[in-house]
């Protein structure tokens, strides 16, 4: 076994240099709640670990004057929960991040790690997709921005180029009457992997939905943005017909696996049911009712 090297650079440029130089032997360490488990199980034997938590940009939560947020890729769920305003503006994203693992895991696990781990069932990802988050990545060829839904490439894989590091999430400003929610189905009450996860973000004006986004997790090789579900909601008053159409769009989008947590038929049906419930919670929050 080759010797493991641990690096904790202070700047992003140093981190990118070290990460790119080590090539496929390198792994990024944010919270470590996936990485250490993969190392322990023998699934991964990295030669170099680049800890990004000494880089201020990676661990900061910033709210701009227009209300938009920038969240460092290594910010833990607990740090997000402790932030004064984040949970008021994005309650759905916060609840999704804080459904990952236990309180102990939330003390370390980050949305950046959850996304880069590439699990179709990562809880924070559908909520980030619904939130229209844009991620900033930086690599040897410079910095670029990608829509969060374009990051996962398949189970355990991302569309990041070799040497690129996820730096932060940008969440847009919200017009009045906006809110979001995330619900997942798991076979027990806590500490399990989603059978289906649904994130819904809504803007409601005078009772009518003026903007909507729906993220769907655990039912396809990657987390999905379900545009047809959003279209069914926009312009509606969230009446039964609109909700049924949106639910059907979610079920149609499903390409799930059969496993011990749920069959294909079950996951497909539950995706529609959860859409309705999640939309109801987001609407209640958006309208204050």
């Amino acid at each position, binding site marked *: 076994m080759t*010797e*493991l*090297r*641990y690096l*904790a650079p202070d700047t992003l440029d140093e981190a990118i240099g070290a990460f790119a130089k080590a090539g496929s032997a390198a792994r990024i*360490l944010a*919270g*470590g*709640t996936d990485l*250490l*488990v993969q*190392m*322990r*199980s023998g699934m991964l034997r990295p030669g170099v*670990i680049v*800890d990004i*938590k000494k880089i201020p940009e990676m661990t900061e939560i910033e709210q701009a004057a227009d209300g938009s947020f920038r969240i460092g890729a290594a910010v*833990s769920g*607990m*740090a997000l929960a402790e932030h004064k305003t984040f949970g008021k503006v994005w309650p759905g994203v916060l609840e999704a991040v804080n459904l990952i*693992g*236990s*309180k*102990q*895991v939330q*003390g*370390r696990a980050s949305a950046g790690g959850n996304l880069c781990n590439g699990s179709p069932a990562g809880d924070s990802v559908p909520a980030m997709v619904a939130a229209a988050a844009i991620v900033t990545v930086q690599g040897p060829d410079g910095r670029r921005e990608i829509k969060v839904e374009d990051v996962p490439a398949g189970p355990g894989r991302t569309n990041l180029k070799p040497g690129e590091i996820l730096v932060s999430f940008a969440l847009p400003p919200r017009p009045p009457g906006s809110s979001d929610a995330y619900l997942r189905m798991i076979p027990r*009450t*806590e*500490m399990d992997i989603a059978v289906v996860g649904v994130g819904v973000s809504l803007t409601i004006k005078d009772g009518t939905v003026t903007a909507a986004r729906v993220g769907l997790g655990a039912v396809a090789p990657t987390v999905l943005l379900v545009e047809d579900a959003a279209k069914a909601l926009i312009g509606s008053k969230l009446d039964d017909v609109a909700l049924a159409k949106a639910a059907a769009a979610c079920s149609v989008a499903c390409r799930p696996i059969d496993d011990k947590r749920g069959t294909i038929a079950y996951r497909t049906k539950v995706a529609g049911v959860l859409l309705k419930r999640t939309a109801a919670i987001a609407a209640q929050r958006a309208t204050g009712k």
Partner: protein
Amino acid sequence: MAKVHVTTSINGEPMEFLCEPSDTMLDALRGPLALTGSKEGCASGDCGACSITLDDRLICSCLMLAVEAQDHEIRTIEGMAQGDKLHPLQQKFLEMAALQCGICTSGMLVASDALLKKNPDPSEEEVRFWLAGNLCRCTGYDKIVRAVMETAAEMRAQ
């Protein structure tokens, strides 16, 4: 193999140790630091027996590299009692027999302490959800939850 020198603070005391880059914090605690109160159950973040706090946030020490402790503050079960005086949670766990084999106990105590520092008046449901990451395979959860609730009530009354 080149060992790494780590300077940290454990239970309020400055501390130094040597570790391999791949060692977990739990390895360091139970090895060179000889603080064996934190137990290894699953080593994959599922059981909570190795719970500690890192800069006052509850974490599993099996999911942290020991080298990450550099310049941070660690607290373990060994720092919970004040000299011979047990922490109210420890006292209550004893009185109410909220343990059987004891493997989960230090993790339960560290996690419960972190909860009560954040929320001195938790509902039973909040206690149960907070402790969902701490597994107990023998005494069950009722006695533990009751002990936490009762300690919280007594600490609030003081």
